[in-house]
């Protein structure tokens, strides 16, 4: 059925697009006026909301922006962990609409354009080689510009693989494709840095979410500021945020998820929160194989919310259905992508493949023990490198090991940090015992945070163990894999500080912020000297 003007009553917006002066012109003008008024009101509300952002949070967002911008500037192109492969994936997806292949392809791990750019800028031999330096002479820059101008049209889309990261799901790379195409100028380095800058936004997003998590957990203002400062000043996180790597999107998703999960637990389930939980979980699956670990905290938050709030059965089923439905849609999208991607396929080689290996529970438990604690007399030597464990991952790798892991923190600093981390765990345990009543009152929040942390760590250990069955010297467990847990680390530190008497807490907060600033500047200084001195 259509009205006199020939428009469907179900599509009123089309009336405004009609070129003919319709009798309903006055109505259109009124509608346009109403829309403009609504837009003005929305803008006013947004402005008011922005004015409502606490000043300490604004200051910490500024801190994060400077921190990550400095890392973007100091880390030469393609020097982040596996960054050349991540860029190659994003470029191929942006140019052709399909990901590169993991094991087959045309023999080109990256496009001709990327290879030539890396050659001229001295970036290939720079990766992980401490004695190397990037090219910085004017003549090399000029010659690269000439070479780039002479490249054939297909030089940017011929990197069909094999690509080591082609098994990753496509969400992050598709997002980077937008920056790739939107970058002005069309030069490779222009596109490359546009992608780094857009990737850094994920790191910046983590800062307000860290604040929101802390706001759910702490009544005073200062613990919120401390949690957020620890996230904003974490040098490894900022260094990762400054490079092209899906790990930073995963960290942002997990931070947002943790906030929504805690909010749901405390404030009760709403349609919006359940949709957000479903969307974030689906995004986690579509970002990285390690994103699968989100299923455990998702199940936990749904169960704990039901236990705490006891919603009506029908309502609860509808809510869970909504959340799980969105997650299922994400999983179907992942499977569809896997089907379309031919030789690549999401998670191939990274998470899948357990069925092919002879897994020994005894060996796995022994490996876990020896990762964290000294080997006991009756144990066989652990699988994989003998000197790779807690210190290398949770301390050296969590705070340092920048670029392609070759920029390490000084040994003394790692010693101090290791002592600090061990003391933190001991203090948290002591606190849990001493304040058992509070823990019991908020058991679900504590359990949710614990489950989130442990599910990620356990998954990484399983993948690491499985990988070492194939290549014993590659533990496939780096400090950056723990970046989604930085907000949990910050909450842990702040919980201990908040338990101190007020003056002691102020002293400790000052000490921690000072130390974090020193750590942030040290990481940048070490990188400056490694690459340019």
């Amino acid at each position, binding site marked *: 059925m259509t009205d006199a003007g020939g428009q469907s009553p179900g599509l009123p917006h089309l009336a405004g697009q009609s070129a003919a002066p319709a009798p309903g012109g006055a109505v259109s003008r009124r509608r346009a006026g109403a829309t403009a008024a609504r837009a003005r009101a929305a803008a006013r509300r947004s402005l008011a909301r922005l004015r409502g952002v606490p000043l*300490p949070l604004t*200051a910490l967002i500024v801190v994060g922006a400077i921190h990550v911008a*400095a890392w973007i500037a100091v880390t030469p192109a393609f020097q982040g962990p596996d960054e050349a492969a991540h860029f190659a994936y994003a470029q191929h997806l942006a140019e052709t609409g399909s990901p590169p292949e993991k094991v087959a392809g045309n023999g080109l791990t990256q496009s001709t354009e990327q290879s030539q750019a890396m050659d001229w800028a001295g970036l290939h031999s720079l990766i992980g080689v401490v004695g190397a330096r990037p090219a910085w002479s004017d003549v*090399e820059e000029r010659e690269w510009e000439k070479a780039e101008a002479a490249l054939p049209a297909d030089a940017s889309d011929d990197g069909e693989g094999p690509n080591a990261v082609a098994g990753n799901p496509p969400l992050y790379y598709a997002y980077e494709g937008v920056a790739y195409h939107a970058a002005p100028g069309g030069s490779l380095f222009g596109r490359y840095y546009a992608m780094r800058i857009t990737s850094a936004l994920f790191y910046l997003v983590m800062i307000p979410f860290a604040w929101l998590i802390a706001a759910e957990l702490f009544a005073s203002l200062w613990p919120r500021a401390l949690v957020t400062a620890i996230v904003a000043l974490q040098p490894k996180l900022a260094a990762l945020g400054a490079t092209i790597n899906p790990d930073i999107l995963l960290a942002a998703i997990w931070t947002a998820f943790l906030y929504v999960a805690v909010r749901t637990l405390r404030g009760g389930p709403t349609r919006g929160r359940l949709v957000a939980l479903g969307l974030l979980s689906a995004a986690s699956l579509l970002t990285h194989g390690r994103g699968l670990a989100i299923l455990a905290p998702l199940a936990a938050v749904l169960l704990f919310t039901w236990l705490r709030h006891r919603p009506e059965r029908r309502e609860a089923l509808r809510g869970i259905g909504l959340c799980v439905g969105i997650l299922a849609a994400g999983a179907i999208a992942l499977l569809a992508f896997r089907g379309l991607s031919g030789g690549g396929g999401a998670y191939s080689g990274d998470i899948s493949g357990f069925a092919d290996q002879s897994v020994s529970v005894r060996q796995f438990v022994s490996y876990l023990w020896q990762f964290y604690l000294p080997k006991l007399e009756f144990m066989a030597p652990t699988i994989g490198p003998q000197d790779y464990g807690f210190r290398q991952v949770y301390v050296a790798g969590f705070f340092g090991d920048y670029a392609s892991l070759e920029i390490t923190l000084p040994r003394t600093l790692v010693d101090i940090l290791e002592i600090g981390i061990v003391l933190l765990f001991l203090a948290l345990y002591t606190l849990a015992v001493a304040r058992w009543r509070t823990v019991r009152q908020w058991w679900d929040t504590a359990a949710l945070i614990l489950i989130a942390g442990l599910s990620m760590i356990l998954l990484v250990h399983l993948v690491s163990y499985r990988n070492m069955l194939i290549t014993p010297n590659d533990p496939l467990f780096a400090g950056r894999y723990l970046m989604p847990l930085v907000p949990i680390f910050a909450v842990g530190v702040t919980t201990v500080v908040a338990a101190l008497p007020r*003056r002691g807490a102020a002293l400790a*907060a000052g000490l921690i912020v000072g130390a974090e600033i*020193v750590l942030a500047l040290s990481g940048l200084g070490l990188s400056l000297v490694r690459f340019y*001195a």
Partner: protein
Amino acid sequence: MRRRPSPRVLALSTALFVLALAGIAVFIPYLTREREAVAGVPVPPPYAVAENIRLAPDQQVCLKGVAIDVDSEVAEFSVASNARSGPPLRVSARAPGYRTGGEVAGGYTGPGAVRVPLQPPSQSLLADFCIENRGERSVQLLGAHEGRTASRPVAFVDGEGIPQDMSLRFLDKESGSVLGRLGSLIDRMSAFHPPVLEKPVLWLLLALLVLVLPAAAIYAVVSSFRGEA
């Protein structure tokens, strides 16, 4: 009776103390320490496995397309053979309108680095960098044939391409501190960057990093203690 300091004062003074301590004990010594001034690394040393280049008497190895910058005053390569008395070598760098070089007298011991002074060009250029064995014994030069260290300049022995890369770097004659050479370091950082990360932006970023980042972070935490007695 003396008033006890407020939590804000305590947090502020502790943070500033930590920064001052780190500045005096770590940052200033690190930034002012004299260190070799690298002027360029056309081919880095091997990452894992060396595959040296053997030069018989009168043979010459050349790297084509080596970038030589205006501060490349010394060329450094490595002799890999266990020589008690290495043969004399002639080093040269050539490009249209540019020629420089020097001699390494025989009798040096190996393995080890060998340095030859060069006359740097007035502006950076791409040159052929050659080493000729002028002695009567062969000599091995440090090289590699690894994917990790494969570099743009290609090596030739007596005009014939070889698979190895010959390790080579250039140095400034004078050593210098990071602080003393900060301008040069920022200049290098800006290479291959889009205009949004050109030199003036990098200088601004450095100022923000050193001044605004610590101030804003400390402000955020200290000011949040407002109302805490």
